[in-house]
C-alpha cells in the first residue's frame, strides 16, 4: 500500500461503482485501463481527495496492479494525495496571471486564511495552493475551487474576501 498519509480505509459505494461502469463502457474491450483518470476524478469528487485504499479498489475494479494506479495518481497534479479543506482554492501563478497581480492574491490568501500553502484551516473549510496555468490568462488573476472546479476571474483582494465570506456562509 502506498504510504502517503495515515488513513482509515474507505469503501467505494455502490452508486460510485455504477458510475464506474458507465465510464468503463466508453472504451473498447480489453482497453478498460483508459478509465483510470476519470475514475480517480470520481473518487476525488466523493472523498475530496484520493485515499490509497480507494486506489487499491480502483485497481481491483480495472483488473490492474495497484502500482499502475499509484504511478498515475502521483504523476498528475490534480489528484490530492492527502486531505484538503472542504474548499480547495487553487490560484494560477504562471506568467500572464502574475502580470496582473496573481502573486498578491496568493499572499492575501495566506494572510486571510492564516495558513501556509498546502495546509488546511483549523475549521477544515479551506486550503489553498498555487497551480500552473489554468488557461484563463485574459481574465486573470483566476482561481478555481475543487471538486466542482468553478472558476473565479479578474480577482481582487476585495473579491477574494467576499468569496471566502460567501463560502463560509454556504
Amino acid at each position, binding site marked *: 500500500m502506498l504510504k502517503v498519509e495515515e488513513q482509515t480505509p474507505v469503501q467505494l459505494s455502490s452508486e460510485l461503482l455504477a458510475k464506474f461502469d458507465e465510464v468503463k463502457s*466508453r472504451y*473498447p474491450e480489453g*482497453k478498460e*485501463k*483508459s*478509465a*483510470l*483518470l*476519470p475514475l*480517480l*476524478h470520481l473518487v476525488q469528487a466523493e472523498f475530496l481527495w484520493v485515499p490509497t485504499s480507494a486506489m487499491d479498489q480502483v485497481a481491483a475494479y*480495472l483488473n490492474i496492479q495497484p502500482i*499502475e494506479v499509484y*504511478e*498515475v495518481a502521483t*504523476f*498528475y*497534479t*490534480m*489528484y490530492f494525495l492527502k486531505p484538503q479543506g472542504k474548499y480547495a482554492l487553487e490560484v494560477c*501563478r*504562471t*506568467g*500572464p496571471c*502574475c*502580470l*496582473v497581480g496573481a502573486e498578491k492574491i496568493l499572499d492575501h490568501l495566506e494572510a486571510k486564511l492564516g495558513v501556509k500553502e498546502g495546509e488546511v484551516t483549523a475549521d477544515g473549510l479551506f486550503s489553498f495552493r498555487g*497551480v*500552473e*496555468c*489554468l*488557461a*484563463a*490568462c*485574459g*481574465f*486573470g488573476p483566476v482561481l*478555481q475551487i475543487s*471538486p*466542482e*472546479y*468553478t*472558476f473565479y476571474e479578474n480577482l481582487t483582494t476585495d473579491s477574494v474576501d467576499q468569496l471566502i465570506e460567501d463560502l463560509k456562509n454556504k
Partner: protein
Amino acid sequence: MSRKLLLEHINVPGINTLEVYRQKGGYRAVEKALKTLTPEEIVEEVKKSGLRGRGGAGFPTGMKWSFLAKPEGVARYLVCNADESEPGTFKDRYLMTHIPHALIEGMIVSSFALGAKVSYIYVRGEMMPQIRILEKAIAEAKAAGWLGKNILGTGYDLELYVQPGGGAYICGEETALLESLEGKRGNPRIKPPFPAIAGLYGCPTVVNNVESIAAVVPIINDGGDEYAKIGIGRSTGTKLISASGNLVKPGVYEIELGLPVEEFIYSDEYCGGIANGKRLKATVAGGSSVPVLPANLTLKYANGEPRLMSYESLSEGGFATGTMMGSGGFIAFDEDQCMVRNTWNFSRFYHHESCGQCSPCREGTGWMEKVLHKIEHGHGTMSDVDLLWDIQRKIEGNTICPLGDAAAWPVASAIRHFRDEFEWHIKEPVKSQSQNYGIANYAVPIEKAPVTEDK
C-alpha cells in the same frame, strides 16, 4: 470589421444549445459531408484550404490526415486535443464554453473523413465546467440523431466521448496525450512510429487541436478554396488569438491572418492598447514557449517593415529577431514588468511540467529555475548568465518531445534581447529588489536604436 468564421455567432443568446446553433446554420456541414461527399473528397477540401494545425506546431491539417494508415479490419481514431495548457492560451476553453456544438460538428465531419467510429475529446481535467458543457451538448446531438448509429440514414456510426485529463501540461503533446488516454502517465513516445501509423491502442490515429477541428466546419460549408482566399500567403483563414497581460481589453479575438501586429495591439477593435496608459516593453506572441521579443521587434522587422500576425511574418528574421505564431497566445508586458522575474516564472513552469523522462529536460529545467531565482533575488553573478545560455543550448534538440525546446527558447530569447537587464540585476543586487529596470531601449524604433558592436 474582419471576417469571422468561428466566433460569428458568439454573442447570440443560447448559441450553446443545439436549437439556436441549428437556427444559425449549424450542422449543415455534417449534412453536406455525409450525404454528398466521400471521405477522400473531405480530406481534399481540407488540403485545399491550407488549414494549419492551430495547437502550436502549424503543420498542415489536410496533409496530416492524408498520412493516416488504413489497414483492413483495424479501427482508426480521431482524438481532439483540448488539453489547452500553454501559458497565454485560452481560446479553446472560450470556444468550448460558448459554442460547444462547433467542436462537435467538426468532430463528426472529421471522424467521417478519417473513417473513425469512436472518437475522443481529451479535455484538460481542470476544465470540468467545459467537460459538463460538452457532455450535455453531445447528449443533445445524440438525441437529435447527429451521433450514434446510422447518422442521417447514411449508415455511418459514430460515438463521441469526452475524456478528462489529470492536470499535466505535457499531455498537450500528442503522444503523451495518447498515453494519458490509455490510462498511463503522460510520458511522450519516441517517434516514429507516428500516431498516423500507431497511435491510440496501437491503431492509426489523428490528433487535432480544438480550433483546427472547428475550422473544418466552414471549410466544408464554403469549400476549401473559399477558405484559402482568407489570410495571407501560406497562412490561410482566420485564427483565434488569446490576448493577455497588460492590455486594455484582453480576451479572445478572431483575426484574419495577416493583420498588422500594431493594429492588433492598439486598435479599439482588438486589444485597445496598453493598460493604464503605459508603454509596451515586450511581447510573447504565441504562448510562453515561443521567443519573447522587445516592443520594437514586435511591431517591425529588423529592416523596419511592419510585422504581421501570420505564421511566416511572426517568424521573419529567425530566432535572432523573430518569434513564432505558436498557439496564438499573445502576452503583452508593460514598462513596469521585469523580464528576469518573468523568465524565472516561465522556467519554474517548465520545471514543474517536465515529465522527467529525458535527463536534459528533467535536470536542465530545474537548474535554470534555480539560477534564475538566484539572479532575480539579488544573488546572481555574471557567469550565471553564460551558464543559463549554456544550459538552454544543451536542452534544445536533445529531448524526445518539444517540451525541452519550449523550456529553452524563453530563456534564450530573454538573454538575447534583454541581457542588459539581467546584468543590471547582478550589478545592482539591492536596487533590483525594490525597483524595476524599466523600458530602456526596448521601445525605441529599430532605426534609432544604438548599434551594439559584436565582440
